[in-house]
């Protein structure tokens, strides 16, 4: 238990560069790089974060999403990593280990945002890398709940085409200007967007968890308390 408390304390406050604890090592290379990127993007950058000796994150406005891609490409980020999305809603089904006979479990629906912050439930995230330096940057953009679409990168990075198709079918996020948003994996008439958190994972719904049975805790060992999700 003590270990866990310690870990909780160590979690640094998310978002915003200013809050990084002072004792962490400085990373001049990435600091300079993010300054260069922010200067080039100008007002498009909403927030940015550098984890020293690890990685960089920026969040751009939805309007500037496509131009941000173009700017980063011209800044040397020519290697396309991936595009995907994150649904920040906590899953209403937990890990699918609830007892079907018991009353439904109340779960929090409070959205905890990740690095570089965010205002919406869905965020699109992309990763670009500078070849030969392996300096990578993660770019996030908020997806407006009513529009559920951002601009497409497929004209900027050819490889984005398939990634956007995948994101479209898995999250239901549209990409304006994408040539061909057919389903990539799912059947054409599939309903729903599987990677949204409120899409139930059927494999965990069709049969009850075998671990629901009540057992007494072992003497002198309270660890399995934590294994019990209910």
């Amino acid at each position, binding site marked *: 238990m003590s270990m866990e408390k310690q870990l909780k304390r160590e979690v640094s406050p998310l978002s915003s560069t200013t809050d990084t604890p002072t004792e962490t090592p400085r990373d001049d290379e990435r600091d300079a790089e993010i300054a260069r990127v922010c200067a080039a993007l100008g007002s498009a950058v909403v927030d940015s974060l550098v984890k020293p000796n690890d990685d960089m994150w920026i969040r751009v406005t939805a309007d500037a999403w496509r131009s941000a891609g173009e700017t980063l490409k011209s800044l040397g980020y020519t290697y396309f990593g*991936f595009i995907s999305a994150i649904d920040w809603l906590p899953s209403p089904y937990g890990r699918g280990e609830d007892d079907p006979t018991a009353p439904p479990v109340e779960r929090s629906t409070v959205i*905890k945002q*990740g690095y570089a912050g965010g205002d919406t439930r869905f965020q699109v995230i992309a990763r670009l890398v500078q070849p030969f330096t*392996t300096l990578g940057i993660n770019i996030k953009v908020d997806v407006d709940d009513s529009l559920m679409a951002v601009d497409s990168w497929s004209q900027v*990075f050819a490889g984005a085409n398939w990634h956007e198709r995948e994101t479209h079918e898995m999250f239901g996020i549209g990409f304006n200007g994408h040539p061909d948003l057919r389903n990539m994996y799912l059947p054409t008439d599939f309903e729903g967007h599987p990677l949204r958190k409120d899409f139930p994972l059927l494999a965990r719904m069709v049969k009850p968890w075998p671990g629901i049975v009540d057992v007494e805790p072992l003497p002198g060992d309270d660890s399995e308390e934590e294994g019990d999700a209910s």
Partner: protein
Amino acid sequence: MSLLGDRQQLAYIAAQAADARVNVELETEGMTLNIGPQHPATHGTLRIIARLDGEQVLWADPSCGYMHRGYEKLTEVRSYPQVTALVNRIDWLGSFANEVPFILAAEKLMGVEAPSRAQHIRTILFELSRIANVTLFLGDLGVQLGAVTPVFFAFRDREYVLNLIEGATGGRFHPNFDRIGGLKDDLPAGFIDETRNVMKKLRGFCDQIEDLLFGNEIFQSRTRGIGVIPKDVALQYGMSGANLRASGVDWDLRRDQKLPLAYDKVDWKVITHPDGDSFARCWVRLQEVRESTRIVDQLLDTIPAGPIMAKVPKIIKVPEGEAWVSTENPLGEMGYYVVSQGDMGPFRVKIRSASFNNISITPWLLKGVYVPDIITILASLYFILGDIDR
């Protein structure tokens, strides 16, 4: 290189023109050929819809998803140790290599680092799984081009590597040997000597394949100048691994990235080829097997003594945060973007698999080639269905 690229472009234009002309003059239409999902050349269940004019491809549209298992969703209901068992199955020929980046991402979030002995053994097993994977590629390449014998050589010699992996980890295909903070177990006695023998055998295998396949004039005429990928296109599509290095990009994450693995402790070199055609891709892979055997040999000499497990709590909870770790897997760059919200399992895992990006170039690449070249190009791009569909 540019000349070959031009030739491909010309072939494409010629095909388009021929199609238009034939349609107007003879009122014939092209033929749509459906390759797969169950076809000998698709390594599983990739489907390619190709529009043909005679034997020439006008356009080709790959269609995946026949093996989509929804790993990104499944990881959300699993704890970190359980995810390791799951990601084994992404690229099933080099399974151990799939575990490493995920474990490294989790370790990064937890702020732990494996002891140096564990890092060494990880690197050895990583390279062994690369050898097992690419060895089969070299054999399979022969089958795709019509030579039946190399694949049996490949199965024969891959067996030695799989025996090593099984002896150390207990699993031939799905080791599930990596743990957050280290490894499940130490190496069994005799592993080092055995591995040295096997590495010698595999270098013999490489020589055999080089004589049997790569030196063969027919093989060369089938692969040279076929499916040329220029450097900038490769980068745009996010190609990785040998496919990228065969286009002349000198980039290997094993060398260029600082990760807690033992690559910086050995002397090895990154293989590149300027041509960017199918032959270059195959050749680079062959040389990389040789290089991998050298890496393993050197690592065997320098395994440090010590523990194999760092201090981690028994019940693993990963603190909040996001981390991206990618490694140079047998198929290319394999990365995990792990989002944790402090639970027993990850909140979201984006699996960036190499084959997905590598194969996304095919609609561009397959224009204007002949039907047999589809097979050559697919074979040389080297994808594994589990790695595309995840």
